[in-house]
């Protein structure tokens, strides 16, 4: 498989379950090493973790840390002194309008709020590339819509380049500049589709004709029969 992501792109990876989407993301995150081939960013091999920001499927908030302390976890994990990390976390929470939850324990948060906090934790690392592994997969449909809208709004503040793994065709089209469809194992690029929908996007875009046309092509590439 050969895939190049241009800096500043929001790329969505979509494919059937078991195509290896999460494995691919693990490779990009430097958490796994490829059996063969190379994974590199700007010519530097992504052979070790810590070079890009990565958000796994579940939010993994620590129950013994309140929201601020959870958001600052990534910074503290990489050696930022605690006080400085907490200060940055509070500033980020304020920027994203979440400061009222700063001192709340994660157990008291709703699913959507947990996802926001987890995303903020990853974004706070300030790395130029952000990998999202089905970040909203565990949420109910309404909350997921809510989070997608939120992500659209804060996209530019998160990172320059974003790679999103999803199995939700609407989500991919709504958020991404480019959608890559993977085939079932062994994964190949089945379709590489630029999403030339206007920005800034609103949720309403999903009802337009262009959106429907793109969605049809995606579903076709995924081998999902048309209704």
């Amino acid at each position: 498989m050969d895939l190049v992501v241009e800096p500043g792109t929001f790329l969505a990876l979509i494919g059937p379950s078991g195509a290896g989407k999460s494995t691919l993301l693990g490779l990009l995150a430097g958490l796994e090493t490829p059996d063969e081939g190379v994974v590199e960013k700007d010519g530097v091999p992504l052979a070790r973790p810590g070079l890009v920001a990565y958000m796994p499927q579940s939010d993994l908030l620590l129950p013994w840390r309140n929201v601020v302390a959870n958001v600052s976890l990534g910074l503290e994990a990489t050696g930022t002194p605690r006080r400085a990390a907490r200060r940055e976390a509070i500033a980020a929470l304020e920027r994203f309008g979440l400061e009222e939850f700063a001192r709340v324990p994660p157990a008291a948060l709703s699913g959507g709020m947990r996802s926001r906090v987890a995303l903020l934790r990853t974004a706070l690392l300030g790395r130029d590339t952000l990998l999202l592994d089905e970040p909203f997969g565990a949420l109910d449909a309404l909350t997921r819509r809510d989070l997608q809208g939120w992500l659209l709004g804060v996209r530019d503040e998160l990172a320059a380049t974003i790679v999103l793994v999803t199995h939700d065709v609407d989500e991919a089209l709504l958020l991404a500049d480019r959608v890559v469809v993977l085939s079932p194992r062994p994964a190949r690029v089945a379709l590489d589709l630029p999403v030339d929908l206007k920005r800034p996007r609103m949720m309403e875009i999903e009802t337009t004709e262009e959106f429907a046309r793109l969605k049809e092509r995606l579903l076709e590439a995924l081998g999902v029969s048309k209704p």
Partner: protein
Amino acid sequence: MKRALPAALLALLVLTGWELLVRLFGVPAFLLPGPSDIGEAFWESRDLLLRHAWPTAGEALLGFLVAAATGALSGLLINRSALAERSLYPWLVVSQTLPTVAIAPILVTWLGYGQLPKVLVVTLFCFFPITVATVDGLRATDPDLVRLMRSFGATRRRIFFMVEAPGALPFLFGGVRLAVTYCVIGAVVGEWVGSSEGLGFLMIQDKAQFEIPRLFAEITLLSVMGVSLFLLVALAQRLAAPWTLKRDRAL
């Protein structure tokens, strides 16, 4: 306070029934003293009892602390090293099948009548639950959480102190709560085998001299000691790991 009410009422009921039966049937105090006899014996011998309570409490606490430290350390070692797990863990389990009560006389033979053999007996009683709890707690770390920390670029040391160790605390406290209830028993067993002070020593004497009400007072005092230590651990857990106790309601 309200939650303790049923237990308090039950205790009152049992004590009253006990007292009534003892008086009604005229049971002699050297067979079964009533609660009032026990209270009286306690009051009359309060200085003696308290004087002997301190060494017992000291042995129990010291042995417990040694067990907590060595148990947590060996649990950590077993968790970190596959070799330690395969070589050490089975023998730790085997060691638990040896009756500690039977080892106590040997320890006294070797180490004499001082405090050391009692502390060691307590440690033997308390060590295992803490070790197992530490191993289980560290093993229960969510692998995805470790993966997340690695993706940040965290070192193994930071992963341990920020994720694995705090995550193991609920398990560790479970083991500690179990161990702390053993430690008073351990101290008394150690004193029975050979000592010149402590509540265990006093019990042996009072049994020989048919001071049965005072014997009951000693048992009560030991129980109070055990419960106090248990409450102390519960307090420590509330302070050190409050998230393991309460779940906040959703906003």
